[in-house]
Structures are given as structure tokens and as C-alpha cells.
């Protein structure tokens, strides 16, 4: 069924009088046929059909005054459509042809850049769902060819970009804003022809290569990305493209840690608390960061932010994707508290119930894949944080003790550091401090 609405016959017209119906129910009309005469404050004008069909219903009676622009005045039955009884419900007024579309709500594309300073969010709460819903098909994204090309080059998901062009079309400027770059010379500042401020790390030439479309001839299924997945994709692309990573790997002996864990867990049993190795790693990293403040930092463009507290984000797998709840002030919390908090946060994460304040922030991250038997891996920094620690499995390995070969339980850890903020030596100092705390773990409980 095609709805015909009261057209805006002049830019100032708000209502019109339907002075005469030229067609009646059952008439076949084609594009260009006169449907009705509308009287405005200025003149009487004919309304022509732009569609083809059979008149199904005249919603507004002849002579009706003050019909608002956009209100449905009649319905056409398209070719092949059954002659159904006319709906009695009054439909909500549709936008008049030519009228401006509704402004998209404030959106996530103004996200702070990865280098915007302390406390930048990890996963934004609201991800705007724009163009997709506006197109003809649910998956159609309306964007200019250049916007599409640049989005592909920069790894921007157009479905997560709000369009500012005509009828919400995504234009180049929208994509560039989504990449977190200033739009060159588009909006000249009042001060004159100032060149746009350089963006740290935002070298255009460093853009990812354009990959072709996925292989559609291979049997496959497709799933529309959820918001969390989109944000993960964008933020990690951003991190890997704009943050110069360097990696430091260390083998850490954990026999003493495991022994201490056993003793502590025995002692904590009445309180029904059970420490995991990861809880102890969180504590050790937090203390190490406090001992090496040069590694507990954020690069913020013109400034370097040094934190005097260690908030540790912990990577947790949730059904919708990776999320990083935070142990705030892990350097000051007893491990029993860390264990309790971590258990609650992980549960919330699995149920998708984390509040934004529980996952936005953090001064460094821990990602632990040891439970999967992964020996060693390199993690992607979670901007604006300065480092992330990738923790492998603790396993028995041949180990040189003194001058003899012995068996030790060893865990390989790799720190990824933002080289803009942290130098190699400072990173190494942190890794050494971490190793010392794990290997002589009494300091963790002191």
C-alpha cells in the first residue's frame, strides 16, 4: 500500500485544505495523474501522483481544512496487491517529500581519539545505529562513493557512522571524523586559514590496505555485527594503526606463587574466597606499575599523563565479545578483595550487565590466555592506556637453577607498550619488577 501525504507546496506551508478530490476509490492512477486540489494560504494547486496504482482509500474528506503537511491523505494499492479492507488506524504522519529528515541523535562518532587522555572509555555505551535502518534494505548503507572508498581504506565500519549529507547520506567528512581526524579545511576556523592540527600517529599513508570483499563463493553464513563487535573492531584497528607498539617478553617462575596461593586459599577457605593465579597477576602488575611510575602513563598528544593509582582492566570474554572490567586501585586492594570483585565483574560481563563505569577507564590491562594452554602471545594496547600484559600458561619446563637443570613451573608474559609514552628501559624495568614480585610473592600480601 502506498501512502500519499499532504505535500508541502511552498516552503512555508504547514497545513492545507483539501478542496477537491479528482479521483475516487477504485480509480486506476498512473504517475502524473492529478489526484486532488489543495488550497494553501497562497493558491490552489493540483497534486499529481508520482506512483502507479489503484485508489484504495481517501483518508481525508473533501473540504477538510487545516490538514498538516505530511499527513496521509489517501492510499494507493500497488500492482498485485490484494484489495484489503482499509486500515482504520490513523497512521503517524510521515515526513513530507522534500522535508528534512530527522536529525540523527548525538552519536558515538565524536569519540575521543585514542590519545585523548586519562579515563577515555574502553567500550562506549551507546553506539549509534544510523544509515542501516534508513535504506531500502536493512543492510544498505547510504554513502558517497568516496566515503565508501575511504572507509574501506581506513577500516571504518560505515554502519557505525552517522551521515551528515543530504537525507543522511554518509559523506567523506563523516568518515574522516569517524577515523578521528580533523576534516582538512572543510570548516575554516574563525582565525583564518589555519592548517588543521596534526594528529598524533594519524599518518594517512599508514592506512591499512583495502581488502577485497569476503569470498562469497565459499559456503558460509553471515551475521550482522553487533555494536560491541563494531566498537571492538574500530578501537583495536585504531590502536594498532595509531599506537606504536613494542613488546617485552619474560619467563617468570611461579612455583613460589603457587605455593603461596595454596597457603592463602587454605586460610581464606572459611571466607569462601579462592584466589586465582590471575588475581595474583593483577595485584603484581598493579604493584609493579606503582614501583615503575614511568610505565603507568597515558600519551595525550601534547601531554603525558602519569597515574598515581593502578587501575587494572582485565580482558574477559563475554557472549557479545571482549570486554574489560576494571579493578580500581588494584595496587591498594588486598588480593582477597581483588578476587571477590573479579568474580562479580566476570559474572556481570558474561550476563552483559556491566555498567559503563565498570569497564570504562583503567591505567593498564591484563589479558590472560593461560587457561587455554597458550604459551605466549602479544596483546593489543587498549588506548589511552600505555601498556597491556599478555599472560601465558604456567607450565612445568626444564629450567636452569644455579648451574643445574631442574624442573620449574614457568609462565611467559609479554608486555605491549605505547612507545610514544614509554621507553624501552622503562618498560623493561616494569617487566623486571613484575617478575620479582611474582617470584618472591610475599610482597603481594604485605
Amino acid at each position, binding site marked *: 500500500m502506498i501512502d500519499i501525504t499532504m505535500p508541502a507546496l511552498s516552503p512555508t506551508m504547514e497545513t492545507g485544505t483539501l478542496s477537491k478530490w479528482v479521483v475516487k476509490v477504485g480509480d486506476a492512477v498512473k504517475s502524473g495523474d492529478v489526484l486532488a486540489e489543495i488550497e494553501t494560504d497562497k493558491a490552489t494547486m493540483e497534486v499529481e501522483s508520482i506512483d502507479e496504482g489503484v485508489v484504495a482509500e481517501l483518508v481525508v474528506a473533501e473540504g477538510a481544512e487545516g490538514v498538516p503537511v505530511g499527513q496521509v491523505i489517501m492510499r494507493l494499492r500497488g500492482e498485485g496487491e490484494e484489495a484489503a479492507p482499509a486500515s482504520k488506524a490513523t497512521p503517524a504522519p510521515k515526513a513530507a517529500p522534500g522535508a528534512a529528515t530527522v536529525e540523527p541523535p548525538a552519536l558515538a562518532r565524536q569519540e575521543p581519539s585514542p590519545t585523548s587522555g586519562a579515563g577515555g572509555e574502553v567500550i562506549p555505551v551507546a553506539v549509534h545505529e544510523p544509515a542501516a535502518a534508513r535504506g531500502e534494505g536493512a543492510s544498505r548503507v547510504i554513502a558517497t*562513493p568516496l566515503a565508501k*572508498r575511504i572507509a574501506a*581504506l581506513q577500516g571504518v565500519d560505515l554502519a557505525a557512522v552517522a551521515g551528515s549529507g543530504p537525507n543522511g547520506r554518509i559523506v567523506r567528512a563523516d568518515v574522516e571524523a569517524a577515523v578521528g581526524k580533523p576534516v582538512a579545511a572543510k570548516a*575554516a576556523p574563525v582565525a583564518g586559514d589555519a592548517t588543521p592540527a596534526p594528529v598524533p600517529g594519524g599518518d594517512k599513508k599508514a592506512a591499512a590496505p583495502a581488502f577485497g570483499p569476503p569470498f562469497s563463493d565459499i559456503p558460509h553464513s553471515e551475521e550482522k555485527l553487533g555494536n560491541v563487535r563494531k566498537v571492538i573492531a574500530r578501537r583495536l584497528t585504531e590502536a594498532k594503526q595509531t599506537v606504536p607498539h613494542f613488546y617485552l617478553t619474560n619467563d617468570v617462575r611461579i612455583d613460589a606463587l603457587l605455593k603461596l596461593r595454596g597457603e592463602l586459599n587454605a586460610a581464606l577457605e572459611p571466607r569462601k574466597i579462592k584466589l586465582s593465579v590471575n588475581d595474583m597477576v593483577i595485584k603484581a602488575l598493579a604493584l609493579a606499575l606503582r614501583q615503575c611510575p614511568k610505565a603507568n602513563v597515558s600519551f595525550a598528544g601534547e601531554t603525558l599523563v602519569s597515574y598515581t593509582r593502578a587501575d587494572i582492566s582485565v580482558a574477559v570474554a563475554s557472549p557479545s565479545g571482549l570486554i574489560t572490567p576494571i579493578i580500581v586501585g588494584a595496587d591498594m586492594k588486598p588480593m582477597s578483595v581483588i578476587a571477590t570483585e573479579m568474580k562479580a565483574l566476570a559474572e556481570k560481563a558474561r550476563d552483559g550487565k556491566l555498567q559503563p563505569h565498570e569497564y570504562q577507564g583503567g591505567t593498564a590491562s591484563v589479558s590472560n590466555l593461560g587457561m587455554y594452554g597458550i604459551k605466549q602471545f602479544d596483546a593489543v594496547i587498549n588506548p589511552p592506556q600505555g601498556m597491556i600484559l599478555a599472560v601465558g600458561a604456567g607450565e612445568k619446563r626444564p629450567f636452569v637453577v644455579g648451574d643445574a637443570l631442574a624442573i620449574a613451573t614457568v609462565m611467559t608474559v609479554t608486555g605491549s607498550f605505547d612507545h610514544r609514552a614509554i621507553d624501552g628501559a622503562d618498560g623493561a624495568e616494569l617487566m623486571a619488577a613484575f617478575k620479582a614480585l611474582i617470584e618472591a610473592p610475599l610482597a603481594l600480601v604485605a
Partner: protein
Amino acid sequence: MTETFDLVILGSGPGGYVAAIRASQLGMKVAIVERERLGGICLNWGCIPTKALLRTSEIYHYMTHANAYGLAATGVSFDLAKITERSRKVAGQLNSGVKGLMKKNKVTVVEGVGSLTAATEVTVTTGDQTRVLAAKNVIVATGARARDLPGVAADGKRVWTYRHAMVPPEMPTRLLVIGSGAIGVEFASFYRDMGAEVTIVEMLDRMLPVEDEEVSAFMQKTLTKQGMRILTGAKVSDVTPGAAEVKATITTADGKAETLAFSHVIVAIGIVPNTENIGLEALGVATDRGHIVNDGFGRTNVPGLWAIGDVTGAPWLAHKASHEGIIAVETIAGMHVHPLDKAGIPGCTYSRPQVASVGMTEAKAKAAGLEVKVGKFPFIGNGKAIALGEAEGFVKTVFDAATGELLGAHMVGAEVTELIQGYVIARSLETTEQELMHTVFAHPTLSEMMHESVLDAYGRALHY
């Protein structure tokens, strides 16, 4: 008595009157203040009357070259007074057209000299009467005027500005044109085609310095072949008007100075914004080298006060002013608009041959650090151009190699001022080379060269 409006516009050139129409369309109560003639320089003393003159010289050129087309035209001559008269009639017709548009759109036209007595109040003086117009917003669209040579005022006798050159009292025999921008080159072309001996002096190292370097070089070669003397990197000094001639000293790039006599001098060395005596200083309106500074939407630093067009700076083009006017008015109306994209403004020079361009030159694109793909297609490779007897010129396109963005297009040759819009639309729609390649161009047309130029940028030109 104070009259109140939603919007008062100071100046009725193509910036002001178009802004007035748009504001009226959006339901605003609008007044427009004009001290001379509705339509401003553009249609009274600029764009339009010069196009009338250039049409005359074009036809005259064809008549004197009729045998190239198998025609015979003997005893061809002209009447300068009638040529001017036609040009003035065209301007007059458009002037009354604007009057009609103002009436139709219920815009109050206030004739007189307006000045800002507050950010949103304009006092208009007509003779000994004054009217005070108060408004929610005021747009300054007072335009610009020709810059004088230091020490020599253009008096309309021997030394002319564009304004005198448009209504010549007599036909120049030896003409010196100082400045090789669009205005200088158009008058040079007109008077050369009408038979004058023409010398162009340009201070910079090439003529039409805002155009692509290849376009400048092509124009210098072509106009020289037409008999003009073109001196670049040269300076004019000691312009001394006498009764029957005007003497000028030209110092060429190699430092040699010679003093020559001309029948007339046209000064086309740029413009000065009209910012005096309209109350800007008292309001503390920010300016940059004389031009009012706006924010890309037309806003000045003074709330409620807007500025558009030539008075706000380059490019000094009517269509830039009109578009700025629309952006400003729609912003005032609370509509969501994009700021003016100067890279999307085409520029046209209606000389013979014509020049038209949009966006970045090849050199500018490279200077911006972009890797470019450049296409070029000559008129000689186009059937329609050969059939027209207009086989000189080329179409050049500059693409961003990374994104396929059409960074710029530069054309020289017959009718290119009408062709450029195709590329301007392409830029506005943000097409890449793919859409341009997949577009079907009608045959035989000059526009096929636009297709070929794009293909050439990607090594795929078909006819050359």
C-alpha cells in the same frame, strides 16, 4: 522610526540578493539595502555585461575567419557604441529581473547607503532621509572594488578599471593590461579580437596564476600566437597619462626597463573589499588583510552579524557569494548545512580560448603530499572539437591515487566554462574515478573529453 525585520542584508550583489530570496523562502521577513543598482557588480558591471562584450568579439572573430567554414563575409566592421549599448541593455534586463525577484519574494528593497549602527541594526541614508532597520540578524554583503595602481587613479580616460573598460569611449589601439587574472585576460581577449594591439604584464612568473601550470603555459602560448605580448615576472611603474596616450615603464624579469606609450591602460591587479564606512570598526568585527573573517557558515566574531561574498575574501566569484549566502541563511534558520567547501568552487575565464577549473592543481596536490594520478586529453583527439573548428585545448584531471577522489579538473578550450559543471557535480557527489569511468557520455560532444581525461589518468584513454 525603527522598522524591524528578521534579516537585513547590506548589499544586493549575487551574494546579497540570493541570500534575500532564500531567506524569504524560509519565511523570514527580509530587507536588502543597496546604494547603487540591484544585482551589484556582477550583473551591472561584471560577469554579465562582459559576457555580452565577449560574445560580440567571438562572433566578430568568426566573421573575420568565416572562410575557414566555407563562408564568405566581406566588409565586416563594427560599431563600438552599439556593442556597448547591447552590453548595457543585457545588464539592464537582468537588473530589472532582480527587481522582479525581490518583489516576488516580498523582500523590502531599501535604496541608500547603509551602515551598521549596532550588530543587528542598519541605518540607511538616502539623500537627507534616514531609515533605521533593526533585525535579528544582519548579513554584510558589500562586495569589493578594483584595486588602484599606487599613485595613479583610474580616471576612465587613459587609465581604466574594468568598469571603464566595459563602456569604452573609443576603441583602444595599443592596450596595456596590468594583471593576468580572469578580468585582465578577458578584457585582453576582447580587445585583441576587436583588433587592438595588446600587452599583458603579470607580476608573478606565469599568467592566470591561480590556474594549473599547464593551463597557464597553454594560454600564454595561444594568446601570444593570437598576437598578444605577454610579459610575466614583470612590473609596471611610472604610469603617466597624457592627453593622447599613456606612458608606462615595464621592467621585465631580466631587469630590463623600457618606457612604452599605449593608447589605454586597464588596471586589473586585484580587488579591495568594501569595508569602509559601514560601521565595522566600532563593532570590533574581525578582519584579515581587510577582508571580514567568517567561520565557513558566514558567522563573524560579532553575534548576529554575518558576512558573505567578496568582502570575506577569495575566491572573488559571484557563485561563491551566492552559495555562501545560502549557507548563512540556512544556518540562521537552524538548518543543518555543511560549511563552504572552497575546493568545490569552479572558476571560469571567458577569454578565447576559455579556461575553467575546479579543485586542486597538480602542483598543489603534490605539495599537499598526495600521490596523484593525472589524466590529460587534447581537443585534437575529439571529433566534435574538430568539427567545430576548435581543436585547441585540453582537459586535465587530477586524482588522489589512494582514494580515487577527483582532486581537481583543469580545462582550456572552446566551451569549457559550460563543461566544468560536470566535474563540479562529480566532486559534490564525492564520486571516484569509477563512477566517472562508468558514466556514458553522449557522442559527439566536447564532454567526451572529460571522460577520456579520467580514463587517461588510469592509463585507459581510448582515442589518444
